[in-house]
Structure formats: C-alpha cells, structure tokens
C-alpha cells in the first residue's frame, strides 16, 4: 500500500475514533464505517483501529471474523446475499441460486473477475413471508423468481 493511502486511511479512522470514542465498545461502529467506505477492513485498517483503541489486532480480526457483514478480505463492488434459511428454501431458493450462479459465472463465496459482484449466502433476512429474498448491498429484494433475480443483477450498473 502506498504511504499516502495509508495516511489518509489513518486520518479517516482517527476521525471515526473521534466520533465514537476510543473505548472497546466503539469497535463495532468503527468497523461498520470502514466496511461501508471500503467494502472491507484491510490488515492495515485493522491494525490502525487496534492501535487507536489500545486493543490487539487479533481482537479486531476476531470480531470481524464473527460477523458476516464485516470482511477482512477485498470484496466485489456489490455484495449479493441470498437467504438460505428454511422458509426461503421452501419457496424456491435453490432455483434462484442456480440462476444467479449461471448469470454471474461464479459460485457462492466467490467474486466475479471484474470485481463487480461477490455472491454469498445469508441467514434469515426477516422477509420470510415474502421469500425467496435476497439482499444486494443494503437493498432487499423479496419474492424472487430466477428470471427476476437475473433482471435485478443486470440492472446494477
């Protein structure tokens, strides 16, 4: 990483620490902000967070690894999460999943070559009455069919 990039990342995290405070309990909101801005929390960012909160880098990594919505490795620009829990499963998740995999040319857990999409499974998204459901970045798409899912992905720029 370039030194300039490092410094601006440090400044960014410092501002977050300023905003949320430097106690242990600020760890999650800070990580969420870094995740939002960069789509992942890099090794460098994790160590800067650790330094500023006076905890150990491995503790930061431990928290990131615990939460599905925090990532320590680079992700695609758009993160597609298809619900894998019972209700959605019964409503036809499997066919939607196949259609998405075919359309993007990747399996779950992978990222497209052009870095546009990362595909993942999620657990219940709280849309059980309108399954199958998927989440693209922050937006929820209920009542999917294989065709509809493909259409939604194609619309994303």
């Amino acid at each position: 990483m370039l030194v300039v990039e490092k410094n601006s990342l440090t400044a960014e995290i410092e501002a977050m620490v300023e905003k949320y405070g430097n106690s242990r309990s600020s760890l999650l909101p800070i990580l969420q902000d870094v995740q939002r801005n960069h789509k992942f929390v890099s090794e460098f960012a994790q160590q800067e967070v650790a330094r500023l909160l006076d905890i150990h880098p491995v503790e930061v990594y431990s928290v990131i690894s615990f939460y599905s919505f925090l990532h320590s490795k680079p992700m695609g620009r758009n993160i597609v999460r298809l619900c894998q829990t019972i209700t959605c499963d019964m409503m036809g998740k499997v066919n939607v999943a196949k259609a998405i995999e075919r359309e993007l040319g990747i399996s779950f857990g992978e990222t497209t070559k052009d870095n546009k999409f990362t595909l993942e499974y999620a657990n219940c998204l709280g849309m059980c009455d309108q399954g199958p459901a998927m989440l693209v970045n922050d937006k929820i798409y209920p009542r999917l069919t294989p065709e509809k899912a493909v259409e939604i992905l194609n619309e994303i720029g």
Partner: protein
Amino acid sequence: MENKDTQRAPVSQKPHSVDKPADTTTIGGTISIEINNEKHTVPLGTTILDACKMTGIHVPTLCHHDDLCIAGVCRVCMVEVEGMRTLQASCAFPITSPIKIHTSTPMVRKARRHVIDLMLSEHHGECYSCVRNNNCELQSLANEYGVDKYTFGHVEKSRFEIDNSSFSVIRDMDKCVLCKRCVRTCIDLQEVGVLESVDRGDKTHISTFMEKDLADVICINCGQCINRCPTGALHANDPSDDIWNAIDDPKKHVVIQTAPSPRAAIGEEFGLEAGHSMTQELNTALRRIGFNAVFDTNFTADLTIIEEGTELIIRLFKALVEKDETVALPQFTSCSPGWVKYLEHYYPEYVDNLSSAKSPQQMFGALIKTFYAEKAGIDPKDMISVAVMPCSAKKFECNRPEMADSGYQDVDYGLTTRELAKMIKEAGINLPEMPKTHFDNPFGDASGAGLIFGATGGVMEAAIRTIVEFVLGKKAEDVFEKANVIPVRGFEGVKYYEIPLGDQFGPVPALIQHLVPNWDWLAGATLKVAVAHGTANAKKIMEDIKAGGKFSECHFIEFMACPGGCLGGGGQPIPTNEEIRKKRAQAIYAEDESLELRKSHDNPHVVKLYEEYLTEGPCGHLSHKLLHTHYTKRGKYIA
C-alpha cells in the same frame, strides 16, 4: 488521546464482581450453604467451585485455570443449584445467597458426560502419538467419566494444518477444545495478545491475526500458553530427535548446560512433589544418557552479574560524572528472551536501555565453542551445544542470527525441562535414584547468586550482593542478614527497592580499577531498583517510565517475561500454578542458602576466566565480542 477504558480484558471474561465486606468476620461476611445436603459456611462471593474445593468435593474443570480470569465456556464443571431451571457452571457462579448445591445428580453426570462426548467428537488426534499422553486434561476427563465410545461420532479427518513456523511454539488446532485458556493467557496474563477465537459456530477456532503463521505475528515465544493448554494443541518445538542423533554420532562432542529452574522442577516429571532440586542427580543422568560434558548455566549467570554490573557502573559513571546525556538509564536486564522480544516489539524506543550483556545461556554458548574448545582441544565444528532451559523463548534466542560470535551457532538447541524429562525416561533412567555428581571443569559448580536467577528478583539480588561488596567494601552479610535481599524476593507483580549508599566506600576492586578511579562520585546517592515478572507487569513499569513516573528514576530494573520468573517458564512441567511456583522458589532459595559460595564475584572459575582468557576484564574487547550483543527495533506493525 486519553483512553478511559482501563478494563482491557473483554467484560465477558471478567469475573462477576460481588460487593463483599473486607473481612469475613463482619456480619454478612460469610454465607451458609448446603453442598450435597451437608451444611457449610463460606465467605460471601466464593464461587461454587472454590466452595466445593474447600469442602473436599471434586468438581471437574477444563477451561478454569487458577492463574486466569474466569471464562465459564467449557461447561464441564456444571452442578445443580436448587430452584434454578438450568445447570450452573460452578467456576463462574459466585455465591451470594444461601443456596443448595448438588454436584453429582443423574442430570449433572449426564450433562458432563455429554459435554465431554461433544468435545471428543471434534477432537482429532491420537493419544499414543501426542506429547501430552498421560498428562492431558481431556484424556483424564474421558477416563474419569468412563467414556467408552464416541457417542456423537468422531472427526476422522484433520481440519487444520499444523503451524510449526515458530522456533518455540507449535500449534496443532485439531486437538483444540476451545477452552480459551491460551487466549486469556496471552491477552490478560501476558498482555501480548497473539491469540483469539476466530469465526463462529462450528467454524470457531483459535487463531492469530489474519490467520498468519505464529512466526509472523508478535509472539514473544514465552510459552505460557503451552503451559496452560489442557491438551496437546499447543506444544513446544522439540529438538530431542536431533539431540539423540548428535549423541549417537561418535564424531560429535555433545555438551549440555543446565539452568537452575529446570533442576528445581524436573523432579515433578518423575512423580516427586514440587520443590525438590535435582541438580546433582541430573548431572549423573545426563552423563549416562551420553552427553560428553555437563556444565552449570549458573557459571555464566555469575559472569552475567560481573558483565552487567560493570556495564551499569560504566553507565552511571558516564551519566553522573561525565554528564553524558546519551546514556540510557535505567538499565534493563536482558536474560529473558521473551522480555527482550516484547520490548523490541512494544517499546522499540527503549532498546538502548537493555543491557548489552547476553543471557547466561548465550554467554555459555559463545564460551563453549571458543574457550572450552581450545582447552579441551576439540574443533568447535564437531561440537553440539545444548541448553536445558525452563523456557521456550530460549529456542528462539539461540536461533537469533547474531548469536554466532564463536563463528558457529553458539547454542545449537534449547531443550525444555519437559523435553529433557522425556529423554531421560526414554533412556530408562529414574532420575530421583541417580547418585549425585558435580559439574564438569573448567567451569565447575557455580555460586548461589547464579542459582537464584531462576526466581523473580533473583538477578537483582545477585547483582545487589556483588554491587554492595564492590562499592561499599563491606560483606553483603553485614548489610543484609545472611546476604538475603528479602525486599526483592516474592511474587508481587512489581517490586521497588532503594539502597542508600551513604558516603563510606571501599576501594575499587582490581577487576574494574581501569574503569572507575574511586567511588566518591556516588556519595550520598541512593541506588533505586525495581523487579517485574510477567510481561503484563513489565508493561506497567514501561508505561510508568514513558510517563516519567518513579520507575524512570530507577537505575536498574529486572524484567522476566514469565510469571514467577524462570521457575514459572513456558518449558516447565505441566501443571504450573501459584502453589507450585512457590515451592520451586523455596527449593531454589534453600539450595542457595545451603551453598558456601553465594556471590558471583567470589566464583573462583569466573575469577580465573578473567585472569586467563578475558584478560581485558569485564566489558573489555573480548567480552564485547563474545559476551555482549545488540537488539532489533521490531515495532508492532504486522506485515
């Protein structure tokens, strides 16, 4: 920015705090409970586990360790508390009301058995080929609860690669039972923070930052995690096969040095109570195994005192008389390689404060392949030099690239107490039955001052005995009763001690006469020293120094990475706990008192070494080449 959050350990890992009266004699200080229908009175706030212990009832545990904060994660210690819907983890339950406890109901037994079965279902590894065979807490639990089949199946395939990147600690996570003792050891007890649990649910495992190799993160190799792991998941990097090969090779001259702490503890591996020194029995055993010469690390501990003490005097002289402001004070001891690496990572700006004197192990290594090789007429390239240490960091230390001043790797292998015990057993020797024999010449038996290096405060005490005699010209016995410097002894985390020097000085001893003209410049001065053991305590002193507090005014500070000092080292017999550390310390101090020779500068072999070999005296040219070293500013960024 000021950090308000001083409770660094995760709140979930702190014991419940209970408001209780200072002493149990006041009203409300104790509470009446019933355990298995028997009435007992215990201090308020006692955990159920401790209450059971007090009353002689055994409750099995796994994640609980006396040195560590409460975790309550394994659930092996469950008991029934009347009126409560679920079973309670006795280790994490402070008693605050008059409860009725049952420790062996069908429900309790069944639940415990299930917990053990579940752990076994995820435990991949075979007892016969495990270092912890016969000393494994999981194995004993399975035995205690009569496990005769895998109720919930058993993992057939390995799930994790073994991490053997480190010179010191090997991680075999297939055997991990997720008790998190290592996590608590590294984060809370040592404040190094290498290990944490990673991922969630059935994927949970203990790992390092970004799953890196242990050698690539900030591990100080103290091995304290090994000593607290209940299973074989963490163990030391064992060189005994290579050592056997060297012994079996007739062309190799294999020498061994033994440090004081392994000698005070190795009896435990042979079924003796803690607190029996086996120094001279061990000499015999080592010769029978086939080592060609057996040396006493205390000899170079004595040498360390002379070199490090002289270095301190030079630093003080430069700072006080020559007003040299570049001199780094306080001087820090450098015998503990875990501490040295901790400082290099966390306080790299203070590496100049470390004494440049090598640790006793490394001094000996350099002397064996030069001085001894010459005397014995052996080509150093045919020599293998082994060091028996209580320590896993010594394995890393002997592999530091700069530790080759003899022209060869000065010490070839660091061997822990546990590993040596295994070799002795393999040779069919029952150590306690061995006749007593002395160490080999030209180094012979060393002083009691070198011996007490094994306990926290020991280096400081040894240094004080010598400094007092050198500077005041009095007998140490006239200043301290029996030359025992009690204020620097004991297991208090941080110790601080002042010695007013007054204005009555002796002549400068011949050994260092070329370095200082007289002692008058010390008139009215007070020697301030401190001692810390365990890196969490070291951190306290370092933070105080950074803030310009009282420790920054000290002249000399002893730091040991392990709780209790070397006797509680990461290579010592398992278990190691407070009680055992105390007994090992008693053994060491008792042996010291039993010796005639109790001061490093009185050691005739040390005196002779300066006369014959290191003729420019302490901190002279050859000393610097062989006995001193330099350090690396490592920093804490993990690349």
